[in-house]
């Protein structure tokens, strides 16, 4: 439920509580971070964030560390980390005995995975180039289309590599 659908009196009380404690509602967290309320609730389900407290009326309340965590999650997602991997990074972030080398190793692993995907995508692109080149006559009926014929071949994957 968004703040807009709340009774104005309740809204005022929640805002007032937040002002006194330095905490804010899920709606304000959403505005500050550019992440939707639904996504924030999903992050909570996935144990990526937790409300710092609840208001007397039972509304989730968050503090500045929650904002920092959301920005962390967004930046990590932009670098290709999955939510499960981000959870591990957040755990490392909060663990006293963890060192930067462990975080760096995870980051290098992510780079390896991305480089591997890039290589696979390049191979796919090359295979498509071959199919396009083989189909020189685009006016042929589809029954004679070389691309369709090639895709129907059982051993295509070995041919295009």
């Amino acid at each position, binding site marked *: 439920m968004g703040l807009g659908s709340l009774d104005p009196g309740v809204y005022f009380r929640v805002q007032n509580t937040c002002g006194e404690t330095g905490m804010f509602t899920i709606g304000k967290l959403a505005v500050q971070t550019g992440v939707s309320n639904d996504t924030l609730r999903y992050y909570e389900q996935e144990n990526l964030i937790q409300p710092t407290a609840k208001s007397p009326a039972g509304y989730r309340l968050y503090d500045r560390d929650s904002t920092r965590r959301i920005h962390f999650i967004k930046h990590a997602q932009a670098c290709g980390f999955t939510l499960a991997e981000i959870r591990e990074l957040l755990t490392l972030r909060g663990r006293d005995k963890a060192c930067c*080398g462990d975080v*760096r*190793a995870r980051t*290098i692993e992510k780079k390896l995975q991305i*480089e591997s995907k890039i290589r696979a995508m390049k191979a796919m692109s090359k295979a498509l180039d071959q199919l396009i080149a083989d189909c020189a006559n685009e006016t042929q009926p589809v029954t004679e289309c070389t691309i369709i014929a090639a895709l129907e071949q059982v051993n295509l994957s070995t041919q295009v590599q």
Partner: protein
Amino acid sequence: MKVEMYYTPGCSACLARHDELRTAAEAAVSGLEWQDVNVLDNIDRAVDRGVLTLPAIVIDGEIAFTSMPTVNQLRKTLIQRSGRGA
């Protein structure tokens, strides 16, 4: 037989048991060549071998371990492979 251990400097999991594993490997198979490969200097080679996690151990070009094995696991794998190649 050639063993490549892919690692990155500062990775605590990569350092764990490294010396012990190397000693056990060299004792298990005569003439074994052990090479430590810094992934950061050899990204293409790591991708060629299918290394996606660290540390990883590649034996004769094939990925054998995607995390640090125990000494016994490594020894057993090396002896099996050395028997296969003989």
